[in-house]
């Protein structure tokens, strides 16, 4: 079981991802944009962060960049879950410090197996 911060501006996505992770035994906290996520992540440590890219206030790639500057999150897996699948965007994610890139519509089994893999 891991403590996971799930970040998405879509309430529908937050519900679906949250339900998938909770049912698999993970403890999930949610945020609706990068800024809110950064505040939550700075206040307590998480084992993994999974974030959308296109969000108001602060986007997911900016969140990944900011988290990587915090000592607590230097080695924590940061996954991106987005509708975007262009090579350029993925490279941007990699450069920002993301651990992996998952394309929506998400596959619950694959999401869980990816999480298990990056946490091991």
């Amino acid at each position, binding site marked *: 079981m891991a403590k996971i911060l799930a970040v998405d*501006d*879509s*309430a*529908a*996505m937050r*519900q*679906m*991802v949250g*339900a*998938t992770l*909770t*049912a*698999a035994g993970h403890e999930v906290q949610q945020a609706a944009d990068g800024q809110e996520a950064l505040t939550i992540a700075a206040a307590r440590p998480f084992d993994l962060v999974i974030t959308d890219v*296109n969000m*108001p206030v602060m986007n997911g790639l900016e969140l990944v960049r900011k988290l990587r500057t915090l000592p607590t999150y230097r080695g924590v897996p940061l996954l991106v879950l987005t*509708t*975007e*699948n262009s090579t350029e965007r*993925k490279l941007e*994610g*990699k450069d920002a410090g*993301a*651990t*992996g*890139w*998952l*394309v*929506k*519509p*998400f*596959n*619950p089994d*694959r*999401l869980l197996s*990816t999480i298990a*893999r*990056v946490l091991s």
Partner: protein
Amino acid sequence: MSALPGPRPTVALPPALPGFEQLQRFWEPKSGCWTARLLPGEYYVTRSNEAIMTVLGSCISACVRDPDRGIGGMNHFMLPEESGAGHNAWLDPKAGLATRYGSYAMESLLNQLLRTGASRSRLELKIFGGGKILSSMTVIGQRNIDFMLGYARLEGLKLSAQDVGGTQPRKIVYYPADGKVMVRRLASVSHNLADRERNYMHSLHGQQDGGEVELFE
């Protein structure tokens, strides 16, 4: 830019936003408007004075715009078939495929609107389609309608108009600049429309696997 020849356009074809250059647009003399034509699975966003049209059977379209910025778009999709999708699809631990695919179709459109400069809090939504047009596709239209209403509620989108259900196909023409929608009920289901929807429905089976993953290690 793919524009079909038509009778004497009186205005130049507006530039397409990046990523939408390939979508077919034609000159519609009656409305004096360039018009983008959507097929199942496609969406289009514009900030120009042009129209978006499509023909819907059991598929559903969301017309979404930011009235202050004159940015709007439309999609055209249906949910893939799946067994056992209950009313709590949003909270299903396995997050039903249909719900995930529908959210993906909506999010693709919304993301493009926001990237183009629309404000999420101002977005106005109109929904069309979800007809019961073929005996072999009886519940599909209603599932599409139920999904769309649930999604709008969850996401807090303002639903300002809807024309859904029934037994006739619809031709929809949306003008994002002023939000106007022309709906025409079609008398009968053409073979083309029925084939298009059936082919689209079958193509969605291939997407069941979904969720491409790339690890940067």
